[in-house]
């Protein structure tokens, strides 16, 4: 059995899931902080 498709699939899952987590955390943070900043403006 060729092991490389399994290795590639495992890395693809790990990288995609980590990237999705970071992008989601960043996007929600930016959106929430932008909404909070709007409150400060008169």
């Amino acid at each position: 059995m060729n092991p490389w498709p399994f290795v590639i699939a495992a890395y693809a899952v790990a990288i995609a899931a980590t990237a999705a987590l970071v992008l989601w955390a960043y996007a929600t943070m930016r959106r929430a902080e932008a909404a909070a900043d709007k409150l400060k403006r008169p």
Partner: protein
Amino acid sequence: MHFLANPARFLKFARPASAWLLSIGLLFAMVGIVAGLTLTPPDYLQGETVRILYIHVPAAWLGMAGWAGIAAASVSQLVWRHPLAAVAGRATAPAGATFAAICLITGSIWGRPTWGTWWEWDGRLTSMLILFFLYLGYIALASAERERGGEGRLAAIFGLVGAINLPIIHYSVLWWRTLHQGQSIGLGGSSIDSSILWPLPLTMVGFTGIFAAAVLMRMRAGLAEAKVEARMRRAAGQ
């Protein structure tokens, strides 16, 4: 920890810390992944599939560390009423769930060519799957409590009770000798040859940095959302 109890002081720390942790985490993770895929020899028994170790082990560690963080935040909330504890617990859960899922999926992918099966109801695999479901339960409970304007005490109790699963995961390979191999890395050393082991600390540090950055970013989002909600409640009450 009490030093950071003030949200303004916490944000002063979290803004640069999230950027630094993310940068350092990405750098270490990338170097570790490239080294693990190209610079280490195949294992004499597992062959090339041993390379999955460099992502599976950090994911397992972070899946468990995430719940340990939730348990610590729960104690902090229930005992000291730390104002950021509930925010920290809610911010940690999605990151912990993500890494628990990565651990389960990469382990399953490794298991097919190595054990000849995608899944086995083995002690370690099953207790890790339970941890993933505990994360989902915690996320649902904490969200429901927050929507109802609660302080998150129920979620904190759930976080503490769920911590019982952590020693079960850790000792599962000793208590039930089924398919998952025993502990190969401990405080006293490792049974893995150093020619294969060396990229692992790099990915451990890298993914831990990314995890911590994601938690800090979620905490910043949680604090900003709370600020907006408080203002809207005040405006509605006027």
